[in-house]
Every structure is written in structure tokens, then in C-alpha cells.
């Protein structure tokens, strides 16, 4: 056997705010870095296609719409600056290897070996340390009819607007809660969408509870931004229905109407959003220690103040370690890079701690409003565990809430047992969209707290990879053949 290429100091998975910031910081500290990302361009979900709109205030002559003024805003400019910073570092440093369109399908944590697939071709890269910056996913919103064509997530609608300039045709509804609902409403209305209704599911009394949680003074800038968004949305004709309960989507082969307790709306598009949860697919597959976040109703990997996990070579930064938003992710990415340099012997503890002061302060600022938002937008019990037994919870295998409850009564103690009983979580998405719901349903049926039901343990491959790709040669640019 010939020895493989020398391992990189640091492999970063995900080129969103956390991954980009970590890559730039680690490169500046002299570390060799490989940055892999599933998207064709850096930015993550929050700054998707942000480069296409940067520096192009007059719009885009090619007819592409990422330069759409509907998306303009101070956050987009910040995102464009982050991406430009990464591009500059890539251009200036031979140590920084950026690999777009590259998905991680297996990680051997002990050997530091990442198995990837790029454009259908398998690859491998070795690294002394790994930083997972895989971000967030939208919380599943299992309502009756949510599998109908025409029902999408609010995030999906935002991606369609950012990358294809597309808005829903005809009447549309956004249902759920959280800042993204208002931001999306404004963006769709600015871009010329048809009649738009926001069905708000926030519970009564949420605002007083949230105000008691504090954090308002230091987070007032973000709050002011939110209030001005709400004002603009209403001025642009958004219809708002507060206190929506019992939401369901209706239609035969596609969405025709949305109904709730006391109301109904004919529409062809329904956009669901009940906040975001950490994307823990890889950290769970690795068997890292996780903890239940009671404020955000989700699991997250157990991390120290530098993002280090329970595995000595693996760290996590950004929303994948707990929802904090893009500014917190940037700070966490920098801290993780500093700690990587320390653990690799490139920086002593005193230098690391001194350099960590600015990102630590930024992290505190970014998280100041979080307790307020968590309480204001806590998901209702019906979102976590749909009460109607006929509701599909596993979209892939079409398993209903009633089937999961029945399995729990027969003795299934958590999502891993339900998977064996019913195939829930065994389909192509590997439980990304049903794992949390199944756990909550089992907990409800067994009368135990949700975290006591445990988490689904996914297996590699994390992403689909063909046998052909596995059988082909392993392309590694710096690996001479023979």
C-alpha cells in the first residue's frame, strides 16, 4: 500500500457563516484547511447565492434574480462581505482548499478520514481535526395534508426566491411563527407575489412570558429590525390571522385549501415554518454526546466553550451546535478555529485566549435576544406531536402518528425501536424529517419526558452515494497515481 496524502490540519464541513469564518481564521493562523460544502457557492442557507446579487444594484442583465432588490438588506451585505473574505483567503493561500458541490457521506472520527462525493465521484480526505459546521434545518411541521404538492417550507420559498427569482402563483399562505415568517412575507410581497396570508400559530400570552425572560436591552437592535419588518409587511397588504390552531392542508392530488379552527382559505401554496433546529445528522451518526435543549425543544451536541465535542478530534460550530443565528455562528467558527490551532500546537493557551476575546464578545451580543425569541416562538405541543392519528409523520415511508403511538403502546421505547417496528426513519431522508416527531409521540404515549425517548441513530452513508462512485477511482488532486 502506498501512503495517502499528508492529512490537513483541519477539515471543515459546511461553508455557511460558521464554516467560512473558521476557514478564514484557521488559514490566518497557518493551518492547512480543506473546506467542503454541498452547495455550488459559499454562504450556507442564510446567504445562499449572495455573491450573485453583490455589487449589482441595478439588477442582473442575465435575467437571474439573485440581485433582486426584494432581498436587499443589511444582512445580505454582511453575508456578501463574509463570502468575499473567504474568496480572498482562497485566492491568497495555497493552504486553503475549498471544495464546493461536495457532500460528506462518511466520517471515521478516530482515523480522521472524510469520505466525500463530488458530482457523482467519490473522494477521501484526511485531517487531524474536523469541524462540523452543518447548520440548521427547519423544524418538521407535521399537519394533516403536509405531503401534498403545493405545501413547502418557508425556507424552501426563500431559496426559490434567492436562486430562481420565483414567487408563488396566485394566493398563498405562510403558516407558523418566528421572524422568518415576517421576513419571507416582506420578501415575497416586494418581489410581486399574489395575495398573501400569514396564519400565526404563536400561543396567547407568549409575549409577556418572553418579556420576563429578559435579554431585551442588549438585543434591542435586532428587535427594532423585527418591528419594522412587521410594519412593512402589513403596509404591503399582508393579511394576518393570529392564534391559528388545528391547521390542515386540503386537496386531492395537490393543495387546494388551508383550514384551521374557525377559518378556511383557498390557496395553491402553503409555506410552513415553526423555527429551525440544529442539523445533528452527522453528530448523532458519530455517536457524540448530545443534550436536550429545553428552551428550543431540540437535541444538540454537548459542546464546551470552544465548540469541542465528546470526541477529542471533532468540534461543532454554528447552528448545528444550537440555534443562535448567523452572527453567533461566525463568532463560534472563529473560536473553534482558535481552539484547533491550540490543540495542534500552533498557538499557546494564552495567545488563544487573548485572540478569543472579540469573538466571545460578539457571541454574547448575538445571543442576547435568544432567550426572548425562544420563549416567544416556542412550538406548540401539537407541532411537536400531532394529535390527529391519521397525520403522516414519516413522509418517506408514510407512517402515521397513530401507527407510532400504537407501536409505543406495544413496547417501542424510542425512535430506534419505532424504526424497526414501522420503517419510520428508514426511508431516503433517514429520519431527518420524522425523528424528532416520532420521539415526541413515543414520549406522549408512554408518559415520559420527550428527551427520555432518546434520539434516532442514523448510519452512513449520510448522503446517497452510488456503487459506481464507490467502485471508481478516488480522485485526490495531490495523490500521484502509482
Amino acid at each position: 500500500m502506498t501512503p495517502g496524502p499528508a492529512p490537513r490540519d483541519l477539515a471543515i464541513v459546511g461553508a455557511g457563516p460558521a464554516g467560512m469564518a473558521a476557514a478564514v481564521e484557521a488559514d490566518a493562523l497557518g493551518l492547512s484547511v480543506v473546506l467542503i460544502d454541498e452547495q455550488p457557492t459559499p454562504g450556507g442557507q442564510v446567504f445562499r447565492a449572495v455573491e450573485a446579487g453583490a455589487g449589482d444594484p441595478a439588477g442582473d442583465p442575465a435575467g437571474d434574480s439573485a440581485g433582486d432588490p426584494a432581498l436587499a438588506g443589511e444582512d445580505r451585505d454582511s453575508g456578501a462581505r463574509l463570502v468575499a473574505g473567504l474568496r480572498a483567503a482562497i485566492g491568497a493561500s495555497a493552504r486553503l482548499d475549498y471544495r464546493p458541490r461536495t457532500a460528506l457521506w462518511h466520517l471515521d472520527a478516530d482515523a480522521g478520514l472524510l469520505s466525500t462525493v463530488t458530482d457523482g465521484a467519490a473522494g477521501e480526505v484526511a485531517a487531524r481535526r474536523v469541524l462540523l459546521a452543518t447548520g440548521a434545518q427547519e423544524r418538521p411541521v407535521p399537519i394533516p395534508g403536509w405531503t401534498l404538492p403545493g405545501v413547502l417550507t418557508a425556507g424552501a420559498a426563500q431559496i426559490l426566491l434567492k436562486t430562481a427569482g420565483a414567487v408563488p402563483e396566485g394566493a398563498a399562505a405562510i403558516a407558523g411563527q418566528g421572524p422568518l415568517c415576517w421576513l419571507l412575507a416582506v420578501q415575497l410581497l416586494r418581489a410581486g407575489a399574489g395575495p398573501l396570508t400569514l396564519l400565526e400559530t404563536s400561543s396567547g400570552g407568549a409575549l409577556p412570558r418572553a418579556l420576563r425572560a429578559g435579554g431585551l436591552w442588549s438585543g434591542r437592535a435586532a428587535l427594532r429590525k423585527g418591528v419594522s419588518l412587521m410594519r412593512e409587511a402589513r403596509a404591503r397588504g399582508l393579511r394576518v390571522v393570529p392564534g391559528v390552531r388545528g391547521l390542515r392542508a386540503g386537496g386531492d392530488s395537490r393543495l387546494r385549501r388551508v383550514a384551521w379552527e374557525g377559518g378556511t382559505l383557498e390557496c395553491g401554496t402553503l409555506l410552513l415554518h415553526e423555527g429551525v433546529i440544529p442539523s445533528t445528522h452527522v453528530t448523532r451518526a458519530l455517536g457524540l454526546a448530545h443534550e436536550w435543549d429545553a428552551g428550543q425543544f431540540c437535541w444538540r451536541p454537548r459542546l464546551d466553550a470552544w465548540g469541542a465535542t465528546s470526541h477529542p478530534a471533532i468540534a461543532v460550530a454554528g447552528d448545528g451546535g444550537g440555534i443562535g443565528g448567523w452572527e453567533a455562528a461566525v463568532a463560534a467558527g472563529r473560536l473553534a478555529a482558535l481552539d484547533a490551532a491550540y490543540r495542534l500546537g500552533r498557538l499557546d493557551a494564552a495567545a488563544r485566549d487573548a485572540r478569543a476575546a472579540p469573538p466571545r464578545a460578539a457571541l454574547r451580543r448575538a445571543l442576547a435576544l435568544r432567550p426572548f425569541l425562544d420563549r416567544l416562538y416556542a412550538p406548540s405541543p401539537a407541532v411537536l406531536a400531532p394529535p390527529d392519528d391519521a397525520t403522516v409523520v414519516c413522509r418517506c415511508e408514510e407512517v402515521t402518528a397513530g401507527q407510532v403511538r400504537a407501536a409505543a403502546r406495544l413496547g417501542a421505547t424510542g425512535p430506534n425501536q419505532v424504526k424497526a417496528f414501522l420503517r419510520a426513519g428508514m426511508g431516503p431522508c433517514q429520519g431527518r424529517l420524522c425523528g424528532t416527531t416520532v420521539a415526541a409521540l413515543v414520549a406522549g404515549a408512554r408518559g415520559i419526558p420527550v428527551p427520555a425517548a432518546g434520539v434516532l441513530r442514523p448510519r452512513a452513508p449520510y448522503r446517497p452515494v452510488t456503487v459506481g462512485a464507490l467502485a471508481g477511482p478516488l480522485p485526490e488532486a495531490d495523490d500521484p497515481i502509482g
Partner: protein
Amino acid sequence: MVEVLVGDRPVLVPAGASAAAAVLLSDLPAIRTTPVSGAPRLPYCMMGVCFDCLAEIDGVPNRQACMVTVAPGMRIAPQRGVRAA
């Protein structure tokens, strides 16, 4: 703009958009039917999480259409029910 084929229909989509965006712009009623009940599906999450946009792209089945960037002449075909062995 880029022209792709969704089913047998040519569709113009902005460069940089995904195959799943092309599907939604095409008015196709479903990109796949489910293996269990044959229910119609269209893309749902657009960010690689739900796998409801699985399609046959340039002859390769079960690809996540939301993770594939459109290219001129790309053929995006629906998948029906249980895939052939």
C-alpha cells in the same frame, strides 16, 4: 437563463438554480409518486433534508433535485412508485 427538459417539457430557469426549482417552475403535477401509496410529491424543503424531490436526472435515478444545479439540456424525469430493481 438555462433551458432544461422537465419530463418532456422544455423549461427556462435562471442559471444557478436547482433542478428542483426547474420542476416547480414547470407546472409538472408531481416529480415522483411514493413507493408505499403512490401519492404524488413535489419538492418540499429545497435544502437537501426531505428527499421528496428525488428524480431521474440525466439518466441517474434517485438524485436529490434540490442539490443539483441546472445545466443546459439537463433532462429531469419523474420517478414512479417503487423503483425497478
